[in-house]
């Protein structure tokens, strides 16, 4: 009787997923949203999410999470870890979406293009990756909500000893690096490049890297070992936020001084700092927090971590929009600093 009921639940879940997949496929094939298609962004998001999942979870934990999302039964511990896996997957998709937009935006601005219209088109196209990230995050949140509701009924599990860095997590890091490199190469495909490693020079913005990495390490050290991985989440998110505000103020001052160089410097800082802060969140802080939860060292992510994961990518998106407006807004008369 119980077996029959379980089989029926599995079939219904599978049917629901197949229906959703068919619906999405039909929308894509209809061509109604052809303007919303960004192949490089979609591939980056899918493979980036897979790599990010592997960075924070072992292959066995991922397989169990998929089985439990499909209605399979499991232990209390696997229920809790699976619920966290889906929450982490939603977080990764959302962060990767915003990061993809920032990366795409940098490449759109940093590589030669066919006139102003071409650059504008590519800048607008870059925002679509955030939309993809949001959709994928919502899809991942469905099993997360369902499983966390069930996991909330069970008590706190015993701490599980860390088994070091397993092979699948190393594979996750390597895969993530490969996805980033391939995405950049795919995005700049066909664009004329001048000089040695020009795209690397464009992407590796020195001041933004120094501020984000330096600020994050300093904040994590000052918070101490007791804060654990949360210190890194807050470190990257807060440093990123400070960088965004600093860049905005500098850009506004540039408008006041009517200095194009100042505005350009501020825009470059905003885009690069947000990219590196998001990279730190998804590749360093996120996997560390995931291991803490999976090994039972914490019940779940803290409220500040969750706020950071939701708000910082959203702020990045808003600041990219502002950057776009600042770049395309003509200035009437340049000042003497030009």
């Amino acid at each position: 009787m119980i077996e029959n009921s379980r089989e029926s639940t599995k079939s219904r879940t599978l049917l629901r997923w197949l229906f959703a997949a068919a619906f999405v496929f039909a929308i894509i094939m209809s061509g109604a949203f052809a303007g919303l298609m960004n192949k490089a962004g979609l591939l980056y998001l899918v493979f980036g999410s897979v790599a990010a999942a592997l960075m924070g979870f072992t292959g066995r934990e991922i397989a169990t999470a998929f089985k439990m999302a499909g209605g399979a039964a499991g232990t209390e511990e696997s229920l809790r870890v699976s619920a966290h896996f889906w929450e982490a997957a939603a977080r990764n998709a959302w962060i990767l979406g915003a990061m993809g937009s920032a990366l795409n935006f940098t490449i759109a601005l940093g590589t030669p293009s066919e006139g102003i219209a071409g650059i504008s088109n590519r800048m607008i196209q870059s925002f679509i990756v955030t939309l993809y990230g949001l959709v994928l995050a919502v899809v991942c949140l469905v099993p997360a909500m369902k499983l966390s509701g069930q996991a909330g009924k069970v008590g706190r599990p015993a701490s599980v000893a860390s088994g070091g860095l397993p092979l699948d997590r190393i594979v996750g890091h390597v895969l993530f690096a490969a996805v980033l490199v391939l995405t950049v190469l795919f995005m700049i495909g066909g664009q004329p490049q001048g000089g040695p490693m020009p795209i690397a020079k464009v992407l590796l913005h020195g001041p933004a890297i120094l501020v984000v990495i330096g600020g994050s390490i300093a904040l994590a050290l000052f918070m101490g070992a007791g804060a654990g991985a949360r210190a890194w989440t807050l470190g990257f998110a807060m440093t990123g936020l400070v960088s965004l505000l600093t860049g905005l103020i500098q850009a506004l001052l540039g408008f006041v001084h009517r200095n194009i160089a100042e505005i350009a410097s501020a825009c470059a800082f905003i885009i690069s700092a947000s990219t590196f802060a998001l990279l730190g969140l998804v590749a360093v802080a996120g996997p560390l927090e995931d291991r803490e939860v999976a090994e039972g060292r914490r019940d779940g992510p803290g409220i500040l971590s969750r706020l950071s994961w939701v708000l910082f990518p959203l702020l990045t998106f808003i600041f990219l929009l502002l950057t776009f407006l600042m770049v395309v807004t003509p200035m009437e008369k340049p000042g003497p600093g030009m």
Partner: protein
Amino acid sequence: MTDHKAGKIDDLLREALADDLPPDVAAGMRQRIERFRSEKMTGEAKPSTVAWAWLFRRGVWAALSILMLVAGILLQAGRSSNPLTDRISTVKAAYTGLEAPRR
């Protein structure tokens, strides 16, 4: 107990426990005491050395991170030349209908 009686007991103890150890036994005891003291000293030094090394590493990281932060802020404030900044300048100038600013 009176003072007189206490004094007598002290004298008796001194007689019974006189310092009449043979020289080799005394030397052995001194060696053992020295060994015990040196072990204690080394044992105390180990955790402090580890703690100092840990503090030192932590301090290095803290100093390094602050230096990176300050260097980044100074570079940004000084508007150092960068390919992305130059490209944005060109695009912005194109929208404004001007030539890109020269650095």
